[in-house]
């Protein structure tokens, strides 16, 4: 892998990638350790289900391991991993919605919504009842795909518009306008449901 191809990566990350490509499992474990939390969070936010999120995250790292040799380095490793997780999660979501169980309307929204309260709630979150959480999740879930994806990614505070654009393969302007449209739509919905 040439240095030019990994120009967007810092030297430590480039070195780690090279070690993984050479078959160093310790280096791979370091990568998993660094990005697992973020990858799992993204999968969970798209799928709203712990088992699916865990499976998709592991699948994403397996794919990442086998594809790392071809990683071009024209985006950061973080956005590359997020793109893999996003694609796999959306595929799973699509498959799930096509399942006969769902087609028959036998699923209920509560099934996909976590019953337990977050164990690491911020003081602000403590004010949000479980019912409100479920309502918000459902309203986000009902957004058109194009808006929902941007909303989910923007909920990661450390992702810039540029990174979201790279993950979704969109122009930055489109990310900006979709995010604004999504906020307006959600705000309107929250008001209609007396959430805000």
């Amino acid at each position, binding site marked *: 892998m040439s240095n030019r191809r990994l120009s967007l990566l810092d030297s430590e990350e480039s070195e780690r990638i090279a070690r993984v490509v050479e*078959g160093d*499992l*310790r280096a*791979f*474990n370091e990568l*998993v*350790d660094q990005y*697992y*939390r973020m990858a*799992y*969070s993204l999968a*969970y*936010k798209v799928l709203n289900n*712990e088992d699916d*999120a*865990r499976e998709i995250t*592991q699948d994403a790292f397996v794919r990442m391991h086998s594809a790392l040799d071809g990683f071009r380095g024209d985006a950061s490793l973080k956005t590359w991993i997020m793109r893999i997780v996003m694609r796999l999660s959306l595929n799973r979501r699509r498959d799930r919605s096509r399942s006969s169980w769902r087609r028959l309307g036998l699923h209920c929204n509560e099934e996909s919504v*976590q019953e*337990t*309260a*977050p*164990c*690491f709630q*911020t003081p*602000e*979150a403590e004010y*949000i009842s479980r019912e*409100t*959480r*479920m309502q*918000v*999740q459902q309203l*986000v879930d009902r957004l058109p795909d194009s808006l929902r994806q941007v*909303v*989910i990614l*923007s*909920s990661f*505070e450390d992702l*810039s*518009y540029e990174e979201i654009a790279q993950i979704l393969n969109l122009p930055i302007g489109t990310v*900006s*306008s979709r*995010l*604004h449209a999504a*906020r307006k739509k*959600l*705000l309107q919905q*929250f008001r209609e449901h007396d*959430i*805000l």
Partner: protein
Amino acid sequence: MFFSNRKKQRSLSAYLDGELTGTQSIDFSEQLAFNADLRSQLADFAATDSLVRNALTPPRIPNPPVVSTTRDEAVRVNPPSRRRLKPAALAAAGLLVTAGITLASLRRRGIV
């Protein structure tokens, strides 16, 4: 700087996300200072974001799985156990053959 209504709207999200440049951010802050509606809209968007962020946050995040490096290390440091067992199996087989030949030889001589 004059902001059109549409531009104000778009800038609102970008301002909230810290995506405006230094000068743009200062200009927009000035707009906010004189526009109560805009301030109220900004607060609404911030509250919307907060609700979404809290609702989407996973209740718990499992520990990352660890890929076992034991096999890898065994290959590097020691020969695999299968290879270590092979000479022992060969020695046992050799002993059995030797014992068999000795027994056959003793039988032929009528000793056993």
